[in-house]
């Protein structure tokens, strides 16, 4: 306990916590910049830092960016991150009714509760899960990876087919280089490709560069000058209005009481969504929003300014953060794109997920987890202090954003192993990611497939080597394997059965 506190209360960790929380709010408040991207840009800065401060900083950016997205969603009807899309519906209506500050207060309260609940769940579930991790070996990991792949495509976008194509692309990329047997595939004789595509540069490319290119598109030119001017003016006007908001921020106990069940329900759902590979904050917020709507006595208010809707959506998306870190830290399977970045940074620090994190390096791990909970509380306080100003981040000029993000992307890719080739990898994936964005293909399935594909292959081969005799008997005599096989079959068949039923009715 003492070691955890001393790790956590070191100057570097505290600074990292504050900087991460503030940075997260900025990234979240900027429409278009997501938590995943903010985190991937910070990886190069973490190289020189100690493990605890760097991971606490990333965790803080993660949760406060997801929260920060609600500011622009509520005040200017533009979700700061995809995770706040559901919040924008009711939040902006409330702003128009002059209840913007109240809406922000509810969103803050719900985010903090959702985040803290998920942090506690992480603290309680992860060490238990890791205890049974010794029962997990190659066959189980193979099936978990396959399970992750079966749901990754469907859950991560509006279009199932596009999600599957993205995941398929990730699988192909994952085949480059050597797997368990040291025979390089698709390396075209290039030494750099023999070791496979490096995950971190690929992630930076897929998450950051497309955003820069999209921002660069909105350059003011002769044709759209008037239009751009109008947009700028309306944003300025809304920001000015936000500065003059009246009312109280924190909900009173009487106001909070009817919202609490909604918040807790959405938090638990959010944790579940977080644990599933591939489903991130955006899904979490919609699940939370829908559960709030279904459980509400005032359904007619939804869409016209419901505080319950905001509470459900914001508790849901922040609960995803802690949930997504559970499988990442215990089994090495990230629950969301942002958790994949977190895992990547942890690997750069020289740690791999699993038993060691909760035994040999338990002090360090618990410091990070407690830091995560602290970040969730700090973001509420900071949000309260900044409530009238945070929306200004939305007006940060592109002339500053674009060069900063681009230079961070290039430096980050290079610094990981001092290899220019990784910069080319980043640029390649940046261009691919831009095309994917243009044609509405989600990037998260690609990254998850890039992790899960090689993992599935490696563990399938290892399990074949481990079994003495029939591989089928080997798999079917392992209870956890049978459980996951049933899960995979159910996941694959569920949509078909649902469709049949609907047709029968």
């Amino acid at each position: 306990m003492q070691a955890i506190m001393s790790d956590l209360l070191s100057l570097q960790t505290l600074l990292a916590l504050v900087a991460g929380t503030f940075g997260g709010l900025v990234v979240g408040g900027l429409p278009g910049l997501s938590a995943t991207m903010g985190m991937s840009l910070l990886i190069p800065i973490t190289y020189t830092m100690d493990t605890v401060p760097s991971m606490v900083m990333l965790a803080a950016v993660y949760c406060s960016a997801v929260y920060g997205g609600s500011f622009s969603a509520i005040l200017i009807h533009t979700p700061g991150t995809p995770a706040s899309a559901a919040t924008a519906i009711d939040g902006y209506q409330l702003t128009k009714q002059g209840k913007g500050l109240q809406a922000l207060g509810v969103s803050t309260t719900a985010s903090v509760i959702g985040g803290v609940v998920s942090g506690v769940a992480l603290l309680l579930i992860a060490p238990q899960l890791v205890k049974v991790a010794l029962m997990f070996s190659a066959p189980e990991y193979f099936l978990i990876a396959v399970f992750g792949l079966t749901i990754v495509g469907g859950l991560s976008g509006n279009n199932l087919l596009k999600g599957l194509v993205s995941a398929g692309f990730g699988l192909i990329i994952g085949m480059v280089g050597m797997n368990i047997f040291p025979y390089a595939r698709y390396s075209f004789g290039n030494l750099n490709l023999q070791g496979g595509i490096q995950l971190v540069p690929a992630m930076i490319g897929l998450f950051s560069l497309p955003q820069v290119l999209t921002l660069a598109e909105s350059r003011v030119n002769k044709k759209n000058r008037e239009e751009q001017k109008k947009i700028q003016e309306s944003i300025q006007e809304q920001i000015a209005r936000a500065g003059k908001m009246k009312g109280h921020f924190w909900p009173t106990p009487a106001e909070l009481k009817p919202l609490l069940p909604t918040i807790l329900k959405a938090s638990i759902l959010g944790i579940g969504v977080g644990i599933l590979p591939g489903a991130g904050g955006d899904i979490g917020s919609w699940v939370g929003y829908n559960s709030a709507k279904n459980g509400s006595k005032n359904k007619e208010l939804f869409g016209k300014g419901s505080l319950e809707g905001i509470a459900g959506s914001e508790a849901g998306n922040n609960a995803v953060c802690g949930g997504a870190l559970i499988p990442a830290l215990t089994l090495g399977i990230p629950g969301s794109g942002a958790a994949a970045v977190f895992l990547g940074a942890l690997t750069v620090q020289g740690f791999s997920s699993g038993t060691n994190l909760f035994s040999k390096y338990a002090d360090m791990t618990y410091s990070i987890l407690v830091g995560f909970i602290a970040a969730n509380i700090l973001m509420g306080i900071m949000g309260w202090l900044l409530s009238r100003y945070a929306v200004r981040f939305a007006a940060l000029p592109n002339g500053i954003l674009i060069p900063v993000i681009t230079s961070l992307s290039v430096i980050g890719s290079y610094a990981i192993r001092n290899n220019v080739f990784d910069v080319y990898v980043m640029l390649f994936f940046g261009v691919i990611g831009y095309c994917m964005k243009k044609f509405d293909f989600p990037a998260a399935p690609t990254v998850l497939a890039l992790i899960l594909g090689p993992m599935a292959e490696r563990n399938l081969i290892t399990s074949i080597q481990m079994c003495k005799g029939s591989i089928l008997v080997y798999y079917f005599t392992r209870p956890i394997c049978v459980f996951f096989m049933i899960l995979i079959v159910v996941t694959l068949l569920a949509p078909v059965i649902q469709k049949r039923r609907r047709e029968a009715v």
Partner: protein
Amino acid sequence: MKKILGIALGAVMVMNLTACSGGGAGAPAASTAAQAAQAQSGTAEKDGDQSTDSGYPVDKVTLLCPSDAGGAMDQNCRMMAPYLEKHLGVPVEVTNMGGSACWIGWSYLYNEAPKDGSCISFANFPNMITGYLDTANTTGLDNTSFQFLEMLTSDTNIIVAAEGEDRFTDLESLLEYARDNVVTVADAGARTDDAVCVAQLEKASGVTFQHVHFENTAGGMAAIQGRQVDLLVCNVSEAVEPVESGAITGIGIIDRERSSFLPELQCSGDLGYEISCSSSRGFICAHGMDEQAKALVCEALEAAMNDPELQSAAETAGINLAPMNEAEFTGWVTAQNDAIREIFGMLD
């Protein structure tokens, strides 16, 4: 507003630069550029610097670590660097260049790095040998491309089983059992010292095992503790603590002599097998490096290995120093090269 943002932008840029210089410890490309610049600036400056004091032909040495920062190889390099610097008289800087099982770094050492004595590298064995013996290796390099300066450390291979294993208790009973039963043995990868060790034992004893390749020793260690495999091959340094705490059972050492760390364990030499398997690491340079520089580096490395400060640092870090000078090291590589060539087909 714009001014404030401008300052913030500047701050971010500065952060970038510090992150870069600290983490990377300077890129090889950057250091060669610096040297080129220095060469252009004339001899006047050169007279004043350290190179004349130490007699070393260049004023800075890059110690290339061909794997990523934070790993065991990186720790070895960073442990040695200050002592090499002390005995060589010029600054020594560790640079990480990981990728493709070290071949990105070694290929850079041979093909691109200056051969004036300003770049030497670290290497791990038998991984380097299994790497170039592989027909899939496109670098075209082999043991004749490098010169082997000084061995740093050697970590003998050990075979361990799960806690409470009763089918076999030592090397002899294990081999007896494995003659009639399928025995799975985990290693840390198909081209690692662990896999080489299993293959050497198979060749010497005539027994075959079912190889299970994990990604690293941690994966194999979890598998043996969860009783997913029958055996694990790893290194003594990795096994001493779990064997002593009873988490796993030691079976035998694959060496001509017993290990001083776990003296109660049978060794393959006890059974009359003339095999010795280990994970060994040492310092190398590209073939054709400046002879005068090479001689000075060898001398400094040997002096560093005899430095009591390094010896106590190594003991604290649990690193088993195994000095070998240039002649011994070169002979050892040749012998390993021949031995591994014979068992190469048995690695997968």
